[in-house]
């Protein structure tokens, strides 16, 4: 950009054609008088090429005699930001050492850039992360973060409860059209993937059981294994995981983008509660649809297991069905359904929460989406564990 001595445009080619040696960036340190050092730039200073390392001003001025610093750049054939960065680094060292810097020897463009860079003083008063790299401070920060995210979640659940109250009193505003769309999104549009996963899980359970049970010549119990496994555990968990990846992520991305585009602000300033308008329909729809999806997954999982049992292990059809009927009763299915309602709530909550508290940038939306899925899956598994303990304690 500052190639005054050459005709526009031809310079880079010309320099590349020069011998490596001539083009090399060089730096000499001279002592014109006892209290002055002079830094002499020469050769071709270009970003991305080898550049001399920055002299240590502190060492050079150790004896205290040196009070002034000058530059010389007559031998400089080409320069770019690398010189500016180099010099501003030196300036930073000189300031605390109390050395006066005379910039006259620098190329005039570089001087201008240096002035420009120091024209606006860095933002002060905010003290962002000043001590964040201290170990204890970091632990403290983390603790505060966790604390505030827990508070945030409770606040959100509280808001949601209030909003539910408004719904019951007929005062919550949302568009029915949105609800229909959500119902489709979490309903039949999710069926293909739920079908695929459920059948495969049924197959896997059956195969896994078959290998072990064959040792005891008890292959018929594959039917029990598949039925109980699907009804109590696998159907709700797998639908939960699928829906969190499919719908929970979409919730977070959707609401997060609205946050970035100020659409959520536009709702608020209209006096519409974003919780009523955006969150409530999503939570209701998922809580409603998850048990249905779970039931559907139960059936397909059983079918998958049956395909293995009858098709590959030659268990008679009637016998397999009879075993299935004896193995599970309405309690097992109900446990699965209750879980799926809870999982639906977890997925919707984490998706909407991450979306609502999303920052105001595109990367924040990505982050919100990822956390929505991760958090939902973690809580689904934790909740499932609690369920296992509780049902075991009360013996169902």
């Amino acid at each position, binding site marked *: 950009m500052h190639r005054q001595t050459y005709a526009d445009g031809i310079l880079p080619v010309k320099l590349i054609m020069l011998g490596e040696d001539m083009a090399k960036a060089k730096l000499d340190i001279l002592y014109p008088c006892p209290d002055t050092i002079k830094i002499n730039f020469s050769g071709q200073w270009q970003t991305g090429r080898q550049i001399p390392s920055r002299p240590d001003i502190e060492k050079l001025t150790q004896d205290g005699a040196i009070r002034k610093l000058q530059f010389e750049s007559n031998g400089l054939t080409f320069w770019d930001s690398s010189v500016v960065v180099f010099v501003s680094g030196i300036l930073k060292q000189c300031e605390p050492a109390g050395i006066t810097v005379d910039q006259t020897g620098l190329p005039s463009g570089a001087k201008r850039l240096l002035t420009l860079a120091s024209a606006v003083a860095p933002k002060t*008063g*905010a*003290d962002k992360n000043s001590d964040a790299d201290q170990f204890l401070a970091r632990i403290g920060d983390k603790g505060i973060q966790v604390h505030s995210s827990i508070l945030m979640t409770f606040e959100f659940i509280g808001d949601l409860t209030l909003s539910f109250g408004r719904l019951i009193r007929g005062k919550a*505003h949302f568009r029915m059209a*949105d609800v229909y769309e959500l119902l489709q999104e979490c309903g039949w549009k999710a069926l293909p993937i739920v079908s695929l996963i459920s059948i495969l899980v049924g197959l896997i359970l059956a195969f896994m059981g078959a290998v072990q049970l064959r040792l005891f010549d008890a292959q018929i119990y594959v039917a029990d294994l598949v039925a109980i496994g699907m009804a109590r555990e696998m159907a709700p968990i797998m639908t939960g995981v699928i829906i969190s990846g499919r719908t929970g992520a979409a919730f977070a991305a959707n609401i997060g*983008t*609205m946050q970035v*585009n*100020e*659409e959520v*602000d*536009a*709702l*608020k*300033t*209209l*006096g*519409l509660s974003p919780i009523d308008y955006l969150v409530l329909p999503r939570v209701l729809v998922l809580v409603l649809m998850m048990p249905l999806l779970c039931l559907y997954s139960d059936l397909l999982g059983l079918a998958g297991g049956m395909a293995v049992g009858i098709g590959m292990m030659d268990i008679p059809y009637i016998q397999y069905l009879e075993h299935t009927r004896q193995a599970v009763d309405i309690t097992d299915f109900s446990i699965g359904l209750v879980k799926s309602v809870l999982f639906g709530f977890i997925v919707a909550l984490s998706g909407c929460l991450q979306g609502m508290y999303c920052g105001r940038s595109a990367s924040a939306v990505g982050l919100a989406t990822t956390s929505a899925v991760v958090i939902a899956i973690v809580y689904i598994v934790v909740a499932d564990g609690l369920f296992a303990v509780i049902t075991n304690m009360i013996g169902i």
Partner: protein
Amino acid sequence: MHNKTQTKTVPHITVSNLTMTYGDYVVIRDLDFTINRGDVFAVMGGSGCGKSTLMRILIGLKSPAKGSVHYQDVNFWEMSESGRNKMMQRMGILYQSGALWSSLTLAENVALPLEQYTCLSKNGIREFVTLKLALVGLAGFENYYPSEISGGMRKRAGLARAMALDPDVLFFDEPSAGLDPISAKMLDDLIIEIKESLGATIVIVTHELPSIFAIANNSIFLDTATRTAVAAGDPKKMLKTSNNPNVIRFLTRGDKIAKQ
């Protein structure tokens, strides 16, 4: 809004002793100004001085750290949330990005406030929407989605939505940012037109000098360095009388530096 008996003596918006912060970071402290009914009030200042933050406080999206905002004689931030929501319905806001709801068509965007807060029939709403979109020059675009129109059109559609409920006071965050000079001028004319026909008070955050001088009759200048308001009043007079170098530099695009 067309209530002409309103006493002229009470300013429409009174801001006193307002301090805005993000966490510990003070953006602006001790802000005092008044906006009269029917004013076009410009909020000026360099980038990052807190103009948008001030606007968020005025429209109820962010609470002030200290001080108060009065609309006529009601203290906006001391009210109950539902009271504040009621007041917010009387404001029209044009956001910097337009902030149209992307899942709704332009007509649905304009219709939503009407559906919520009026008892108009479906047909009545449709007529209203057609009128408002026509006012901003978007007749015939009823069934377009925000993603299908240009940035300038989005701004205008946002304006149509902001005007849906015939607001008392309109807020604009950098309305002409990202528009070509002609569209910007057209938007200015539109704003003036709306002000005169609706009689609304207008608060406008802007960097555009031509529009500041063309439409604003009152203003405030926020300064990043001192974190206070350093000048207030009619921008044309401010240009003549102010001796704050930052103000003069801003108003003359740096051509003239204050004498001292």
